[in-house]
């Protein structure tokens, strides 16, 4: 795996970079070390316990949650909260929407960003620098809450007031960073393989598709993970698209909408938290399985600039 110079920062992070000579030989465990671990365990508890309490509450009967001093431990584990959320609160539908949007964003982002990154790295087209400058300036201005309204209006006018519209708007938000990450990565690759493909008669697109795209895999792993996370967790875009069409809600929006209803009186906290757990679990599972890429992605995406 060849690594572009820009990502040197990131590569050591995963292999826990411990320094030699930190622990002196032959010494007994010092009280300070014990204290340090006590503090770290406390920190870990603070980080983890809110999530565990949320999962516990998602298995608790509603009456217990609503009483003033119902206690923390569920009197009985009520798995039906999840079934209720899935069917009655239509989280099944929302889950499917989340999967469709996230899948669409990841696939389109991979294609679109890699193609753009490849051309920006390998060609010197007329107007290319202007294009890059415009892309970068957009990153600074930022697509924020303020642009949601026009984004939705434009999508609606184009007949895209649907899940595909949500996908495209989310894609626009994430692809700019990714195309520059991929451009930097391609610049770090040698051109020998591409040259060989050229000699064999491959055109520009074929060279990209057959040679460079497969070579981009290490960086694509990063952009796929970041895209997955950004899209699955996105709240604002699907929120705005689904204001008039609840069928378009994703899981995150569905949970938030249910919480709003809950705040209005019928506090179905158990269903809300069951939904919240459903929204969290896929990300947590993917994170634990592919932690290396998350860490790499976040350090590359940020410190580089």
């Amino acid at each position, binding site marked *: 795996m060849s690594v572009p110079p820009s990502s040197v920062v990131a590569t050591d992070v995963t292999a826990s970079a411990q320094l030699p000579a930190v622990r002196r030989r032959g010494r007994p465990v010092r009280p300070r070390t014990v204290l340090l671990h006590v503090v770290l365990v406390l920190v870990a508890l603070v980080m983890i316990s809110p999530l565990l309490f949320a999962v516990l509450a998602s298995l608790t009967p509603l009456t217990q949650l609503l009483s003033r001093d119902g206690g923390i431990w569920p009197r009985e584990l009520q798995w039906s909260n999840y079934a209720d959320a899935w069917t009655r609160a239509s989280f099944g539908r929302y889950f499917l929407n989340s999967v469709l949007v996230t899948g669409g964003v990841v696939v389109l982002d991979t294609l679109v960003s890699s193609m753009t990154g490849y051309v920006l790295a390998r060609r010197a087209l007329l107007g290319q620098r202007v294009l890059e400058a415009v892309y970068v300036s957009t990153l600074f201005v930022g697509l924020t809450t303020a642009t949601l309204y026009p984004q939705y209006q434009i999508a609606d006018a184009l007949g895209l007031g649907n899940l595909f519209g949500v996908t495209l708007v989310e894609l626009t938000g994430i692809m700019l960073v990714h195309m520059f990450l991929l451009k930097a990565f391609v610049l770090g690759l040698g051109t020998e393989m591409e040259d060989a493909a050229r000699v064999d008669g491959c055109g520009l697109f074929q060279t990209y598709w057959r040679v460079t795209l497969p070579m981009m895999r290490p960086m694509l792993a990063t952009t796929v993970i970041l895209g997955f996370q950004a899209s699955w967790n996105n709240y604002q875009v699907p929120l705005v698209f689904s204001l008039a069409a609840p069928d378009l809600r994703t899981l995150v929006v569905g949970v938030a909408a249910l919480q709003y209803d809950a705040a209005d009186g019928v506090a179905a906290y158990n269903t809300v938290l069951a939904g919240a757990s459903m929204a969290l679990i896929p*990300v947590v599972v993917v994170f634990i399985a592919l932690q290396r890429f998350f860490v790499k992605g976040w350090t590359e995406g940020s410190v580089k600039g």
Partner: protein
Amino acid sequence: MRAARRRHWSRREDKVAYAMLVPALLPYIAFALLPIGWLVWFSLHRWNGFTAPRFVGLDNYARVARDEQWWQSVLTTIEFGAGRLVLEIPLALILAYVFFRGVRAGALYRTVVFLPHVLSAAIIGIIFSFLFRDVGGTVNQLLAGLGWGPLTFFGEPGAALRTLIGVGVWAGVGINMLLFFAGMTTISTEILESAELEGANHWQTFRYIVAPMLLPVTRVVVLISIIGILRSFDLVKTLTDGGPNGRTEVMFTYLYRYFFEPDSIPQIGYAAALGVTASIVVGIVSVAYLRVVRPAKP
């Protein structure tokens, strides 16, 4: 002859290259360039989103300047940001340094501290709004078990802002820790070893070697945090929704209401002016920050 053919070939290739840029360009134009232009254009209009817009020049901006609630939300945003930075950055730095010097099970602790960063901010807000409920909330029940009286987390403006800051720190400390940690791993081990040989303790090593060498990374990390915090929406929306009585409203939750949750008639033109102003505030704060940190002595 051959040169001419190659030029022809290369021009054909250019067409292919341009074509390959189009798939990104189309969504960019439709959902980035146009919306930004749209925002600026309609900020100069009076418009409810339905009837014909009327050009009013800078009237909307004059109203923004007079809108006390808006400036209150700007102030709240800055308080929220300052509160978070003051806690988050030192905490992240300390944790990063502890992990950097090596501690048993460091990788596991690191994973746990980083975990909230991969979760949806909106869901985090929902979970904590449940856990911190003033009456019957999990935290208050736990406190009651220890014999401590119930605390107010949302009912009172100061408390609500502190809750917001606390949850923000919980969610944000991990990424900053990770970035600091990544920065520290680039420091050459030889320097650290020689410091060790000279008898420098952990604190001295940190103070005189790690901290100065980390300064460039710190600048970037703080800048990223500032921009992210000023653009906050998800967490605030689901945790306090600006309550009580709009006292924890931040810039973007405030302007969101003018677009999507109007009290009576939507005021899209005014909302657009607020959006442009918010972007300018983010820009000014970022530039001011960079001006402050740039002349810092190395």
